[in-house]
């Protein structure tokens, strides 16, 4: 048994033994659980994928004369201004002004909030256009100017729902192609799409939230950020395997970090034909090995993790709860699976390759003594489900 303080002392002395969630599997097999738990200090987990519930607060500073922005656009993408004078919130799925969306179905959604965030992190210039109704102390009614990240006072990413613990595998059983946030799905179940880093994924390596909690320091696209709350739709009360691994969605994390410290490679605007725009992020979470049990859970393999196959042409939109079957990430990563008596091709929307890179980068930062582990200030809820939206009248 180790404590957070002991692990951090070893990190600061640059003596910590750090392994990625992939490397730890073989390490524990060779050394045995008890011995490995004495040796290993931290296991790094990671994921890279589209996370629609991402966005950022920006502060522009004040112009002369001042303006209280009441409507604003960044590269023609609308931002939320219902907060203080020159603060705005930019969301990843916001569309560009005049984007025809799905009026010419399927829409292309070439540029949106996620792309503005990518442009800012990549150091590109962005145009601000803002209007105001004017007040005595904020008389300016309009502003149009170019700016870049370094001109901002603050650019803080605030993502209410990242790192879904597990996720649906999308299929399309209908007769026509459909366009979803899991990409284009060919008719008659000709392809499946999944989105998870599987055995590398943060919440699949700490499935019972024993070390990841509110206050945990995380690697958010290269910046040191933290978990600020349970993620929205956090629903831990689901079916789980004997190892505690959920076999469907389950937990989520709300994350925040300074966007000025982020690496452009891990902040990527995304366009999903027929669906909209989003933001793909690379996220790493260190798991301090406080006990053999915590270590055991980090040795989870793709073959131990399964996800439900859901028909996105009917069961998902109509919320029937029906699933077509379950598949493990080991099966999915082969690129072809057997389902419903036929061979189906499999694609992915998360990137295992980039997740591996994040796990490695985080490992190196910890080895250099630059990234410490943190004791959560509060645990994530261990129980709970997602309530549906019930459509009803005022007096019901």
């Amino acid at each position, binding site marked *: 048994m180790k404590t957070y303080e002991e692990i951090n002392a070893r990190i600061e002395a640059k003596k910590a033994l750090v392994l990625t969630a992939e490397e730890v599997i073989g390490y524990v097999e060779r050394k045995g659980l008890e011995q490995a738990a004495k040796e290993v200090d931290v296991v790094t987990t990671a994921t*890279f*994928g*589209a996370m629609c519930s991402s966005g950022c607060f920006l502060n522009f500073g004040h112009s002369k004369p001042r303006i209280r922005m009441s409507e604003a656009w960044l590269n023609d993408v609308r931002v939320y201004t219902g907060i203080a004078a020159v603060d705005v919130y930019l969301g990843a799925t916001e569309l560009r002004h005049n984007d025809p969306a799905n009026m010419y179905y399927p829409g292309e959604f*070439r540029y949106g909030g996620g792309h503005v965030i990518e442009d800012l992190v990549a150091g590109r210039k962005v145009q601000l256009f803002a209007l105001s109704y004017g007040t005595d102390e904020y008389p300016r009614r309009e502003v149009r100017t170019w700016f870049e990240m370094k001109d901002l006072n603050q650019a803080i990413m605030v993502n209410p729902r990242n790192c879904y613990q597990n996720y649906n595998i999308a299929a399309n059983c209908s007769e026509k192609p459909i366009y979803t946030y899991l*990409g*284009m799905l*060919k008719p008659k179940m*000709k*392809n499946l*799409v999944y989105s998870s880093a599987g055995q590398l994924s943060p919440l699949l390596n700490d499935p019972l939230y024993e070390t990841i909690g509110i206050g945990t320091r995380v690697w958010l696209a290269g910046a040191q950020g933290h978990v600020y709350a349970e993620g929205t739709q956090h629903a831990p009360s689901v079916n789980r395997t004997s190892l505690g691994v959920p076999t469907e969605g389950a937990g989520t994390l709300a994350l925040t970090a300074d966007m000025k410290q982020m690496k452009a490679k891990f902040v*990527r*605007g*995304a*366009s*999903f*034909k027929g669906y909209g725009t*989003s933001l*793909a992020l690379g996220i790493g979470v260190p798991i301090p090995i406080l006990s053999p049990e915590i270590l055991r859970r980090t040795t989870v393999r793709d073959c131990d993790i399964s996800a439900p196959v859901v028909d996105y042409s009917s069961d998902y939109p109509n919320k029937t709860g029906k699933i077509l079957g379950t598949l493990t990430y080991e099966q999915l*990563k*082969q*690129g072809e699976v057997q389902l419903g008596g036929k061979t189906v*091709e*499999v*694609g*992915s*929307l*998360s*990137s*295992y*390759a*980039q997740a*591996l890179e994040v796990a490695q980068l985080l490992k190196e930062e910890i080895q250099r003594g630059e990234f410490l582990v943190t004791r959560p200030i509060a645990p994530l809820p261990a129980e709970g489900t997602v309530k549906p939206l019930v459509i009803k009248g005022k007096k019901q």
Partner: protein
Amino acid sequence: MTTKKLFLYFPPTKIDAPIVYHLVKEHNLTVNIFRAKVTPDENGFLVLDVTGDDENIESGIEYIRSLNVEVNEQSKGLRWEEEKCVHCGNCVPHCPTDALSVIDRQTMRISFNENLCIQCLSCIENCPFSAVKSVF
């Protein structure tokens, strides 16, 4: 028998010769067209495979050049920008010839084999990160 991929660039003038007919009939070539856009008074292109004896391929190319059409054997119709690719693999089931494929199931990295590409462009429609582009 040899198969060559040819990229024909048409100048913005009217060319009314039935090129493909002549390639088949007079130069004894098997023609497989991947992509074409030939409009009078605009720059146009035609991407095709020709299969036949080396001699016939040579004479066919000479014939096309005699019409003032540029023939390029080195060109690429599609560009995979590796630095933009995040290696998610969403394109893979949409690629009918495995030109885009997972080269290593351990790291799940993607690679593009240009020789297999038939320029159907479905990767372009399905890449969320605009990592594949058409040069035409």
